[in-house]
């Protein structure tokens, strides 16, 4: 299932899609799978499964702590693929989000093959830019996977156009300069960035990640973006309040997007 399914469904309902992130293996592989399923049942349209990595330079403290715990618990790349497989039948597209080295170590084509076989829709690559992605471009084509690159407020128009041209599925707009993490107020730079990306993206959906942690913030972002990406707040909810808190937050986020 490609991610376009999720965006089309949301668009048909006149709202932005809710994109939820959780790392695999947190707090354990089995509990991580249960958490993703709970998130799906509570209304996310699209799932990002994080591949825990030893050197997560894009992540703030919440996701760092969760992925450190997952790694300390012994999570392996194959567990991440297993997590994808376990939740791929639940009716929403599933992407992996991974720093590049674990993918390269697994073998780029082998990773694409196994991700596709597990029922995954594609891969988000926070530290791989299209300029360095030759092997991944070929592998994602060969295995018909979506590939999501990031754009940022500091990206030039030329880079936005180039990046968008290499994306399939959606474009990931990191709307604040900085690491992942929930924030009290949404960024004023976000609408501007989304407008710039949309000018280059045509019909390709634009998802925005900027620290959303409530339904009200989701509504704000959903007013101008095709997808609202939530990570740290969901991880916090799961870490602090388990599945009930995760469900409550997911429902709140989703209700913020419902017209």
């Amino acid at each position: 299932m490609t991610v376009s399914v999720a965006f089309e469904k949301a668009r048909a309902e006149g709202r932005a899609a809710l994109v939820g992130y959780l790392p695999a293996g947190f707090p354990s592989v089995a509990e991580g799978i249960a958490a993703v399923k709970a998130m799906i049942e509570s209304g996310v349209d699209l799932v990002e499964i994080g591949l825990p990595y030893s050197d997560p330079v894009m992540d703030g403290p919440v996701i760092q702590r969760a992925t450190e715990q997952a790694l300390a618990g012994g999570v392996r790349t194959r567990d991440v693929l297993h997590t994808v497989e376990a939740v791929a039948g639940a009716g929403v597209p599933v992407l992996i989000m991974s720093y590049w080295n674990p993918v390269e170590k697994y073998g780029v084509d082998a990773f694409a093959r196994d991700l596709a076989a597990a029922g995954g829709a594609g891969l988000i690559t926070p530290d791989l830019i299209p300029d360095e992605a030759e092997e991944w471009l070929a592998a994602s084509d060969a295995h018909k996977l979506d590939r999501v690159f990031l754009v940022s407020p500091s990206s030039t128009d030329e880079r936005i156009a180039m990046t968008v041209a290499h994306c399939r599925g959606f474009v990931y707009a990191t709307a604040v300069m900085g690491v992942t993490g929930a924030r009290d107020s949404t960024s004023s730079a976000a609408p501007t960035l989304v407008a710039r990306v949309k000018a280059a993206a045509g019909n390709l959906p634009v998802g925005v990640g900027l620290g959303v942690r409530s339904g009200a913030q989701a509504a704000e972002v959903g007013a101008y973006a095709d997808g609202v990406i939530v990570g740290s707040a969901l991880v916090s909810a799961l870490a602090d309040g388990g599945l009930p808190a995760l469900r409550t937050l997911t429902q709140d986020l989703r209700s913020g997007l419902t017209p």
Partner: protein
Amino acid sequence: MLPDDRGHFGPYGGRFVPEALIAALDELDAHYRKAMADPEFTGEFERMLREYAGTPSLLYDATHLSAHIGGARILLKREDLNHTGAHKVRNVLGQALLTKRMGKGRVIAETGAGQHGVASATAAAYLDLECVVYMGEVDTKRQALNVARMKMLGATVIPVTTGSRTLKDAINEALRDWVTNVDDTHYLLGTAAGPHPFPAMVRDFVRGIGVEARAQCLALTGALPDAVAACVGGGSNAIGMFHAFVPDADVRLYGFEAGGDGIDTGRHAASITGGSHGVLHGSRSYLLQDEDGQTIESHSISAGLDYPSVGPEHAWLHDQGRARYQPVTDAEAMDAFALLCRTEGIIPAIESAHALAGALRVLPALREELGHEPTVIVNLSGRGDKDMHTAGEYFGLFDSGEVIG
């Protein structure tokens, strides 16, 4: 001329960083290229190196050491005599001057044992820049004296409490700061690694080591050396020494990595000889990683070599066979450390002792191959004052009060 426009040394190097940093890296690359072609910048850089850092450093004919080992002429490039006690001052002055030129008022740096942090704080004090140093919490405790030095020089030291709480995590945290504050901040990276243009830029700021050594050797001996040797952690002193000699095909280049307890024990920091291909901290190179590509912690008695990857140009020189990389164990390095103390009255950095140990090890084979007594330049990249606690413990100087040897 490597790297290419996108920072590749063959398959190595490049930029494996968040898109949010690309604009800053492009800006840095443009400024650095322009600066290096601007006599005003290069003139000021040379003036600072000469008047403030104390370069050119001496090329010292180590006659006592040479006589002691016999059958070779060892020349020591005395980077240990530079201000702040190591080759690193060249890099930090270059980058700090470039920071001023870019109109930025703040530098951030990572540090392991604290040497690069102290050098960065020094350059920041000298050039009136705000300086924040990220240092693993474990290291701030091991290196309290260097923390005090940095603070004395006006820097803010932030202990890093994530991951393994050591150098690699300090780099991660510095990258996180940079991505957040990139408008007014330059990341003063401490070695010839990281995303393009850092490997090439750092090399160009430290390449004076080899340029000077080459000319000094010609003046002293009338010929080029048969070999040059340097220690390799991230690889900045080694690339600084090697670069001028790369076109001299008859000059052998030896890089000595930190072999820790020995490669076969798994407790080492030898990325090239004991690691594999991968991506870490923004570039593709050799690194220490597990089956899943998770970084493995490195181990070395030398904090400055205790890093799980290596600059991409070294990976390339290795694959090309132009430079030879070998591991040197903690024990071998400490033997050479003691030897240099006793024969020459020079206490080297433990990093530099790896270079000396490796050079001494390859001498017999080199002599046989050449059929004459080899002349070898060893880069004495830093002085050992900072290592006296380690050396004192290693040689049992604190409890027994006895001398070694």
